[in-house]
C-alpha cells in the first residue's frame, strides 16, 4: 500500500513573543535564522500513513497536535523536513473560517464550497444535502452573522464533509454541537471512513478516538514519542499523565512550608523542562493554575 502522507524529519518553529519590529531589524541585517525565544512546536516528526488509515493524534494541550494537522492541511509550512501529501485534503479545522457574516447562508455555502474546490454543478447537486445535514433550511436567506454558534459549526461541518477529498482532518469539531448533531456527525464520519478516506483525528475524548481510529500517534513536547495501535498510544499517554500527577503530589508533600497554606501558583511537572507551548493553543487551556477557586491568599479580600 503506497502511503498518502509521508513526513520525514518534519519541524516547525514559532516565536514566543510577537515582536515584529525587532525582526525587521534582523531582516535588514540579514539575520533571520536562529533567534532567541524561538521554539520548535514540532521537530523530527517522521511517519507514513497509508490510504484508508484512521489515525488519532494523542497528547496534552500545546504538544503540537493541531500544528501537525495544519501542516498536513497545507495551511502552515514546515521549517525543516519534508512532507508529502498525495491527494486533496478536507480540513475540518476552523470550519466556520470561510464564511462571511454579511452574506446569507445560501451565498456562503456557494462561496465556501467553491473555495474548497467544488464546481458549480457539484455544488448545485449537493446543495440540498448540505442544507439538510446542517438543519439550516429555514435560515437560508438569513445573514450568517445572525446564526448561533452551533448552527455555524453545523454548516461548516456539513460543507467540508461533502468534499470529495481523500484525506479528512478533524480537529475537535466533534466536541461542539448538541448530542443529536454529534450522532449525525459520527454517522457522517463512519460513511467517510467506509468510503476509504484517510482520517486524521485530534480529540481529547478517548471514546471518540476509539470509535474511529485504529492507529495512534502520541505527541509530547513537539516530538513523536509513540506510533502504533491506538490503545498503546492512549496507554502511554495515560501513564505519562499519571506519572506527572504523582510527581506533583510528591512535590507538594515535600513543600517545606511553615504551616502556611500556599496557593498553587504553578503546578510543578505541568510545565516540564523542554515542554513547549504552541501559539495555537486555546486561551487558558494550558495556563498554569495560578489560583484555584476557593483558595485564597491569607489577607486577601474575598470576592
Amino acid at each position, binding site marked *: 500500500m503506497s502511503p498518502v502522507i509521508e513526513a520525514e524529519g518534519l519541524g516547525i518553529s*514559532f516565536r514566543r513573543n510577537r515582536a515584529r519590529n525587532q525582526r525587521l531589524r534582523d531582516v535588514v541585517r540579514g539575520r533571520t535564522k536562529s533567534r532567541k525565544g524561538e521554539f520548535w512546536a514540532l521537530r523530527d516528526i517522521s511517519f507514513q500513513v497509508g490510504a484508508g488509515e484512521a489515525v488519532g493524534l494523542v497528547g496534552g494541550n500545546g504538544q503540537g497536535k493541531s500544528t501537525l494537522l495544519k501542516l498536513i492541511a497545507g495551511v502552515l509550512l*514546515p521549517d525543516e523536513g519534508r512532507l508529502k501529501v498525495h491527494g486533496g485534503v478536507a480540513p475540518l479545522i476552523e470550519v466556520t473560517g470561510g464564511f462571511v457574516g454579511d452574506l446569507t447562508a445560501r451565498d456562503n455555502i456557494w462561496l465556501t464550497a467553491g473555495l474548497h474546490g467544488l464546481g458549480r454543478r457539484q455544488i448545485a447537486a449537493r446543495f440540498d444535502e448540505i442544507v439538510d445535514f446542517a438543519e439550516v433550511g429555514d435560515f437560508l436567506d438569513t445573514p450568517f452573522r445572525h446564526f448561533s454558534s452551533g448552527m455555524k459549526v453545523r454548516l461548516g461541518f456539513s460543507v467540508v464533509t461533502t468534499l470529495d477529498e481523500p484525506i479528512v482532518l478533524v480537529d475537535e469539531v466533534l466536541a461542539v454541537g448538541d448530542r443529536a448533531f454529534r450522532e449525525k456527525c459520527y454517522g457522517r464520519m463512519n460513511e467517510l471512513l467506509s468510503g476509504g478516506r484517510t482520517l486524521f483525528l485530534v480529540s481529547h475524548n478517548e471514546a471518540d478516538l476509539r470509535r474511529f481510529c485504529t492507529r495512534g500517534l502520541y505527541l509530547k513536547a513537539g516530538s513523536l514519542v509513540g506510533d502504533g495501535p491506538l490503545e498503546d498510544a492512549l496507554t502511554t499517554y495515560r501513564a505519562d499523565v499519571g506519572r506527572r500527577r504523582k510527581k506533583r503530589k510528591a512535590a507538594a508533600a515535600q513543600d517545606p512550608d511553615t504551616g502556611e497554606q500556599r496557593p498553587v501558583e504553578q503546578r510543578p511537572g505541568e510545565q516540564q523542562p523542554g515542554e513547549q507551548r504552541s501559539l495555537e493553543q486555546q486561551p487558558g487551556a494550558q495556563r498554569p493554575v495560578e489560583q484555584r477557586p476557593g483558595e485564597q491568599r491569607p489577607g486577601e479580600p474575598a470576592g
Partner: protein
Amino acid sequence: MVALVEPTTRLGTLWQSRRILQLLISRDLKVKYASSVLGYVWTILDPLMMAFVYWFVFSVLMERTIGEAPYIVFLLCAMLPWQWTNGVVRGSMRALSKDAKLVRSTSLPREIWVLRTVGSKFVEFLFAIPVLAVFAVFTGAQLHWQVVYFPLAAGIQAVLLTGAGLALAPLATLYGDVPRLMRIVLRLLFYFSPILYGINDIATRFDKDVLGVPIADIYAFVNPLAGIFDLYRMAFFPDQWVGWSAVLFSAVFAVVLLLIGIRVFRRFEGLVLKEI
C-alpha cells in the same frame, strides 16, 4: 504539497484555481455593493471628487498651464488608473490579514489573495470608466484610434501591481512600518506621476539634458507609471505621446517587479502563516 512543488507546478495550481479567483472577485463586489446603500456611487465618487477638486484649482482658480483641454478628461485618463494603483497597494497590504481565517482554513495557493485584490480593484476601475465617457461627451473630447492601446496599458499595469502586491502583502502583514511607509510613498508617487500634468509638461519646463539625456526621459525612466499613464492618455490626447521607450521601460520594470514580488512572497509565506 504546496510547500514542496516546483515553481512551474505552483503556477499550474494557481491556474487551476482561476475559478476560485473569479469567485473571490465576485464576492468582493457582492459584499461591497450589498453592504452599502450607495454601492456603485462609492466606486465613482472618489475619483470624481478628486478630479473635480484639481480641475477647479488648476483650471478655474488658476490659469491652467499644464496638461491639455478639456482638463477634466485629461485628469481622469490618469486618475482612474491611479485609483487602481492606489487601491491595490493599500488593499494588498491587508490581503492576508483581512481574511486571515479564510487564508488559514484553505490550502489554496496563497498568491491568490493578492491576485484577488488586483482583480477586484481592476473591476472597480472598469466600472468607473463610464464617468470618463460622460465627461468626454460633455466636453466634446475627441476619442482617437489610440484607444486600442488600453488593453496593453492595463496589462502592463496589472503585472506591475501584481509584483508590488506580492511583495507588500507578506511584508505589511509582518511589519507594521510597511503600511505607514507606503502611505507616504503613495502620496509622493501621486504628485510625481503624470496625473495632474503630462510628461510633455516636464519636457517643456525642464528643457535641459543631464549627461546628454533629456530630463523628461529621465523622469519617464524613473517612474514606471509614467509610460503606462501616457499610453492610457493617448486615447484622447495623442499629442502627449512621448514614444515607445517609456512604455518599454514600464513593461521591463513591471516584469522585474513581478519576479521580485514572487520571490519575496515565497520567502515570507511560511512566516506569515504562523503570524496571522
